[in-house]
């Protein structure tokens, strides 16, 4: 079975993955920042029981990971796969995560809220992801009492999440809109309708690898469907724009366009030392090349695999050894060569 990180989803020429997370808290307990260790364990146990007894959830084969018992590499692997948030690593209150066998579902315990249900699928299919999330939430709701009031909806530790507790996001690869600077204008336009666009790798608004996350900011006042429709209509617009600008760029200067991609491909397949930063930018060019029909012999799935495995945690797990930064840069190039030119090596 191909893992979902590598699989190609709908509209994979622009959309990489869709993710929905919902924040929930149990009624009778204080939120994680005021919770003691014993209470935290009790909550985790209750969730664990539901996951074991409910037939639908049982079939997903969840496994629990106590964060205190994981080493740095194991935690980084999970962060890089978006199974846990970087924030949960900083929490120290008996936190952990339930992960389904297919790694499409993760349930974080005692992060900012008691429960964070998160579902992910490849490509642009945010509606399906919401359905997955809601199915789990409904089962939980039959078994536990959530903190809720009529006015503010589901109560969360941070006021930015109250109401539906939903954060829906789609990851998009926008090389053409970045090159032309058009992405900045979209950023402003989206902030006006409660949608945020941010670069997912790298700090601040500077995006590495031209990958952006489109997500809702508003959780109160709109219902779940409205939130999802809002995000998906913005995503639809951006995808269309990106495709248009890609075609236009290619048309305007065919040789320049191809040169750029072939150079990136050349470096990627020949370099001996490569930082993850450089690598992400090269992957971006190569991905564009594949989607524009310039690089015909590489599968998007291979590139997806590279994108996951070149990250520090996954790289060390792949080679089953602990590597320092310099060693990682060397092994990264080795891995890419192995995956891209299997015949030569």
């Amino acid at each position, binding site marked *: 079975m191909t893992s979902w990180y590598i699989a190609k989803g709908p509209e994979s020429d622009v959309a990489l993955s869709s993710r929905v997370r919902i924040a929930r808290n149990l009624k009778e307990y204080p939120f994680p920042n005021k919770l003691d260790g014993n209470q935290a364990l009790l909550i985790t146990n209750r969730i664990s029981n539901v996951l074991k007894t409910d037939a639908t959830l049982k079939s997903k084969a969840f496994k629990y990971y106590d964060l205190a018992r994981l080493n740095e590499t194991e935690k980084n692997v999970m962060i890089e796969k978006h199974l846990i948030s970087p924030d949960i690593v900083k929490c120290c209150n008996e936190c952990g995560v339930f992960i389904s066998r297919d790694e499409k579902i993760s349930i974080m315990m005692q992060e900012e809220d008691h429960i964070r249900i998160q579902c992910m699928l490849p490509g642009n299919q945010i509606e399906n992801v919401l359905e997955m999330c809601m199915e789990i939430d409904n089962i939980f*709701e*039959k078994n536990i009492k959530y903190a*809720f*009031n009529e006015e503010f*909806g589901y109560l969360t*530790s941070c006021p930015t999440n109250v109401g539906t507790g939903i954060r829906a996001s789609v990851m998009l690869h926008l090389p053409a809109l970045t090159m032309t600077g058009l992405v900045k204008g979209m950023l402003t336009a989206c902030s006006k309708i409660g949608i945020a666009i941010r670069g997912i790798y790298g700090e601040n608004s500077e995006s590495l690898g031209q990958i952006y996350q489109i997500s809702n900011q508003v959780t109160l006042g709109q219902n779940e469907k409205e939130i999802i429709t809002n995000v998906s209509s913005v995503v639809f617009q951006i995808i269309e724009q990106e495709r248009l600008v890609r075609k236009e760029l290619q048309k305007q200067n065919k040789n320049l366009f191809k040169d750029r991609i072939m150079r990136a491909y050349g470096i990627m397949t020949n370099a001996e030392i490569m930082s993850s930063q450089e690598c992400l930018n090269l992957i971006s060019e190569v991905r564009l090349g594949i989607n524009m029909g310039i690089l015909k012999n590489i599968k998007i799935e291979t590139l997806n695999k590279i994108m996951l495995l070149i990250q520090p945690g996954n790289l060390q797990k792949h080679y089953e050894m602990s590597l320092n930064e310099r060693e990682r840069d060397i092994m990264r190039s080795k891995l890419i060569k192995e995956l891209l030119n299997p015949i030569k090596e």
Partner: protein
Amino acid sequence: MLCQSCNMKDANVHFTEIINDKKVELYLCNECAQEASQNNLICPININDFFTGMIANCESETRQSNFHLVACNKCGMSFEQFQKTGKLGCEECHKVFKKKLRPILKRLHGDLQHNGKNPCEEAISKISEKVSKSAYDEKSDVIEKSVKTGKPEKTPDEIETLKNDLNKAIQSEEYEKAAELRDKIKLLKNNEISEK
């Protein structure tokens, strides 16, 4: 909030600048923020931190009314603590700080009323299952007939009024009445679908 530099556009970047060891905070629009960072004077802060800044912004007003000293009776979280961390301590905090939370929520979400999924629906369906069905069979028959003969364009309004009544019934904990109303709504909705 308007940009503190040009006072024209909406501010959506939170900037922190250190001048002579003193922290200066600014809320800027994208354009001004870009200009400022090019001048290399200011270091941009993640947009997530923007929120904590928004709460701190109403600090002076809070201090005047001594509200910052108000603490939650369940978890002990004070409003001052909340302003610093941006995180509430428990469900009760939402009630205790309601007055001060409302303007914050309004700014964040532009709305104050939850419109999404409701766990009460679930609770009521459980309760209504317990209520003996036969007692309502007759009534639902009557409703069914009246709906079938009624004008279809009227049903959405009717559903709305019934939904309002349902909410009221839940709030006043009249679950039997709520169950009855829920059945009515269900009938009307089914009828609507079958007509389409």
